[in-house]
């Protein structure tokens, strides 16, 4: 559960150019930028593939992926069952592709909610300042010192109904602090810019300035925040499901892994019900990490310029130094 620490990500404040033409297709500026970077290109491709699979899941899976089949239990991957079957004869491939829907949706929504809370609180605090800022800052730091996974384990242990929306709310509430700190710091540097001061002078209300002026100008930073919380939510949610603390009647990657473990499949040499959802999960997270790394490189000229140092040093100080 690698976490790319948000402090390290310094993103440009201005939004990129509106759009770029690639052949006949108009590509939004940010996407074009990301596609030009090899890391984020790979990452986006992986994530897009997963999303595509999730969308077409009903077309390529059996109708009820959790249905049992007495005649086809514990089968190794074959043409008939691409990813094999579980102890009860459910098709693992169907579970993985249908599970992608819930896993991705839950991760994305929890990420979005956490980002929204973080952005609203962080930016407002930075802009308003004073006691509000102190309180939000304090709260953020406190949440950062309470370990998220143990807190989530305890919280979801107390929950009776662990439906999707409940899990989204709980995860978002625990994870928002990750980003609030960064967004606040970013907003602090923005709040004295001319366009903000101008809006303030013209008597615009606080919420308009926060949502109308500050947020649009921090959009790339907020997007990066979303990607980060997205994959952390994915990992956290599957972790809870692995412990049996999620919605265990749902179809998702974590639930399939949970049942694989409950049935001790790995120790019996049945690697498929465990490996395939794990791979899907790991690949998605890797994709998102790559996107994040790409955003980082795109927005950070130092990172983008490969071998800049070598050239610069040589230019300035001659071969001996390099």
């Amino acid at each position: 559960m690698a976490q790319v620490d948000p402090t390290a990500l310094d993103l440009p404040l201005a939004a990129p150019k509106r759009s770029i033409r690639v052949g006949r297709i108009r590509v939004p500026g940010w996407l074009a930028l990301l596609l030009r970077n090899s890391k984020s290109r790979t990452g986006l491709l992986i994530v897009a593939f997963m999303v595509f699979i999730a969308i077409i899941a009903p077309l390529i899976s059996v109708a009820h992926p959790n249905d049992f089949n007495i005649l086809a239990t514990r089968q190794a991957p074959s043409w008939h069952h691409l990813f094999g079957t579980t102890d009860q004869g459910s098709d693992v491939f169907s579970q993985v592709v249908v599970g992608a829907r819930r896993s991705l949706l839950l991760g994305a929504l929890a990420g979005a909610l956490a980002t929204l809370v973080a952005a609203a609180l962080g930016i407002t605090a930075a802009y308003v300042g004073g006691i509000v800022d102190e309180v939000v800052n304090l709260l953020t730091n406190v949440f950062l010192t309470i370990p998220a996974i143990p807190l989530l384990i305890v919280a979801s242990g107390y929950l009776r109904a662990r439906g999707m929306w409940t899990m989204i709310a709980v995860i978002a509430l625990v994870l928002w602090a990750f980003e609030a700190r960064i967004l606040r710091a970013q907003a602090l540097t923005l709040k004295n810019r001319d366009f903000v001061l101008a809006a303030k002078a013209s008597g615009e209300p606080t919420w308009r300035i926060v949502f109308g002026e500050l947020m649009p100008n921090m959009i790339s930073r907020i997007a990066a925040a979303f990607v980060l919380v997205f994959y952390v939510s994915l990992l956290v949610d599957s972790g809870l499901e692995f412990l049996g603390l999620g919605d265990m009647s749902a179809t998702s990657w974590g639930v399939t892994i949970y049942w694989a473990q409950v049935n001790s499949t790995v120790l019996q040499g049945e690697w498929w019900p465990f490996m395939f959802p794990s791979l899907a999960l790991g690949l998605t997270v890797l994709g998102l990490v790559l996107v994040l790394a790409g955003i980082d490189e795109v927005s950070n000229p130092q990172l983008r310029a490969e071998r800049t140092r070598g050239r610069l040093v040589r230019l300035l100080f001659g071969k001996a130094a390099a």
Partner: protein
Amino acid sequence: MRWFARRLVFYVFAIWVALTLNFLLPRLMPGSPIAGLLEHLSPAQLAANPGIVQTYEALLGGGHHSIWQDYVTYLHRISHFNFGLSTSNYPTPVSEVVGRTLPYSIFLVGVAFILSFVIGTGVGMVAAWRRGRFTDSFVVPAFMTVSAFPAFVLALLGLYFLGLKAGWFPIQHAYDSNVIPAWSWTFIWSAFRHAQLPILVIIAAYAGGWVLNMRTVMINTIGEDYVGMAHAKGLRDRRVMTRYAGRNAILPPLNGFAAQFAGAVGGLVFVEIIFSYPGVGYTLQSAVLGNDYPLAQAILVVLSVCVIVANLIMDVLNFVLDPRLRTS
């Protein structure tokens, strides 16, 4: 020094919030601890113990006070380190359960976290210094890929391939079962052998984050004037890397220490469960599944305190490493 005092006040406040959160969580949710006790029993065991529900009710039935009264009593008790009795280990005090398990967890997560920090920042530093070379092109992506998998997947894979198939590592417990915990070489050796695989898993899962962070910051640092200056002075390459660039680059990642350490503590839970390692992480899961409120609460507080103490240590380190803090 004022900076330091502010940090201390903040930590005290953070502990208070953690305690209050702990107090409120179970009271916001339905469910009873007796039901949790019974959950540990299988249908067969339940069938063999008719009347067990009444037995537990006789043991755990209690009166009800107002929430404020409860809260005051709660804070008072906690301030005396009295966390009550663990319902799933009734009537053993929670402090005893935590006391038995905490040392193993601190050992495991402490060693693993320091190692993943050192390895991660080291690799990140070298990768940034020699961009596009071997470390940067192969080691960094490898770390990224491995760290993209959840800790429990890595732990299960390690258990199966390195522990069970290859037989290189013990796969369960904190020491061999025929060894008595004591300060003897046999015990230390046994504890070391049993900690190997869990530690490797935590490193695999968490070093990747450090690698990426350190690499990013280091690349930025390399562009700074003073690094070029150091080169100009004709200092050896390695010296510039460690003494000039590395030392400054390490400060920003250190600031993210809280989040990283809290994350590693989360991973600890999974690793302990999979390796039957008798630490607080595993105890936390069984407490939660058994609705053992007092135990689960105490562990959350203890883990929060651990993170805070780790932060405090980092603050001191920061103070030593960063001259700006000392002069301000």
